[in-house]
């Protein structure tokens, strides 16, 4: 079972990212859970969402405290929240930042692998706004193939309709531009 914790700001789509990933896995006949950190939602405040993917039925319903992957959707969260708390040593931090993996590793003292991409720039150019939920899924799948890349397309089309193509482009670009160390 792969456990992913997503950090973002309210309104940025961390919950949507978790959901799209889970839907892609379920469509492939696997088991998955996606859920928000429970509570009142406040736009702009740091939020957390969770996703589990497994080939077997998932019985656990506690929050994820020892993630395999941490996905950070907003650059400012990296310095505000202890995003790497509990991250497994063989796990990976996937961050939206204009800094390189070397710089992030050094600044945050991360021992595990780090993947970075400037998702704000990609989202701004492809979607015209800095909502990075679909873009950061491209970075996530580059860092760890938790679901087949192609499996994301159908959930994108179902969720975004006529806006799907732009989201797919942002997703593909992030996949190409993500650097890993």
């Amino acid at each position: 079972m792969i456990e992913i914790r997503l950090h973002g700001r309210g309104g940025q789509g961390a919950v949507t990212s978790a959901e799209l990933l889970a839907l892609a896995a379920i469509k492939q006949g696997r088991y998955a859970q996606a859920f928000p950190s429970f509570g009142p939602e406040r736009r702009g405040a740091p939020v957390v969402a969770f996703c589990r993917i497994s080939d077997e039925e998932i019985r656990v319903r506690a929050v994820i405290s020892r993630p395999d992957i941490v996905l950070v959707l907003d650059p400012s969260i990296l310095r505000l929240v202890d995003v790497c708390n509990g991250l497994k040593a063989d796990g990976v931090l996937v961050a939206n930042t204009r800094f390189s993996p070397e710089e992030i590793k050094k600044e945050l003292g991360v021992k595990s692998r780090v993947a970075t991409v400037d998702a704000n720039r990609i989202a701004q150019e492809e979607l015209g706004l800095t909502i990075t939920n679909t873009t950061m899924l491209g970075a996530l799948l580059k860092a760890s193939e938790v679901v087949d890349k192609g499996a994301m397309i159908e959930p994108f089309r179902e969720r975004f309709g006529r806006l799907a193509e732009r989201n797919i482009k942002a997703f593909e670009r992030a996949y190409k531009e993500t650097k890993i160390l």
Partner: protein
Amino acid sequence: MAIKVGMEVSIAAAQAVKQANTDIIAAYPITPQTHIVEHLAELVNNGELDAEFIPVESEHSAMSVCTGSSAVGARSFTCTSSQGLALMSEIVYIASFLRLPILMLLANRSLSGPLGIWNDHSDVMSIRDCGWIQVFAENGQDVYDHVFIGYRVAEDRNCLLPFLVNLDGFILTHMIEPIEMMDQDMVNRYLPPYQPLYTLHPDHPVTMGAFTGPALYTETKKAQDEALKGSLPYIMKGWQEFGDLTGRYYHPIERYKTEDAKIILITQGSLGGTASIAIDSLREKGESAGLVKIRLWRPFPFEEFREAVKGAELVVVIDRAISYGGPGGPLAGEIRSALYAQERRPRVVNVIAGIGGHDVAPEDFEQIIRQARKSSGEGYEIYGVRE
């Protein structure tokens, strides 16, 4: 044909209410409420569900509408949580006395105060004695399935009782997971149209809810109690036939690795899955541990329960509500009563955990069991408190 789809449990529940061909939905549309009625409002608005959606001014009115609509023979649904249930509770008792087969989904959330919106069982335990059939769901599939099972059992002329499905707030209501959806043909085969026995109709006047003086009151209440106790075989029948149709069989008491278990953990609702992981871990360490999940809360399945724990030396009961100054949580009180007259009975240790949204992980259950071994079994403990 049934297909497995990923969706939020609340949305799946709303889809089931639609597939069950519900006639009347009455709900108070703001907090505390879930996506269940939000989605139902959309379905009615979009013409996908031919039902009357009545956005009432309070939960008290929601249950009043359901009582009236069920009394005239309409299949009636409502849904609430915490404070909403507290406000509704006056009419909840009346619905069961009038023997009206209303279906309610209760997204379990804590009662104020302090003001909190998170999951526990303090809401449902406040209406423990309301006379409804009450079940607990462990996952999204259970919730979806029990919309059909609920109506089917409630409307059975041998029952004619309202049916309450408990689903843990947030932990289930906000969860996206795979759920096997039935096609309409399957639903129709399982759930025939509602054929009421007595209805309010101007052409055939009857009285429902008449004033009852001391000369008849006790007899009336005994009849009500007999009706709820007597519903057990029809609940079993509803589950059996649902299982024959879908392959998913439900039981009043569900057991996990209890056969030779000396230590048995007891849970209700969504804690069951997490607890089963702790049981696996204890078994790997050579401990003889098992899990009993109480699916049917009312009528309480005494016989099935005693059978499930008969070999145990230690029973650890997890409650998600407090009975302040009482003998233990509401579930533990029940368990102790159920075992008291037994010649050989296990030590019962009561632990209150997971209240007000406090997370409970598999390792917490292991810790609870470690502590329970040392406990005398007197009273109860509240787990994970910082002092």
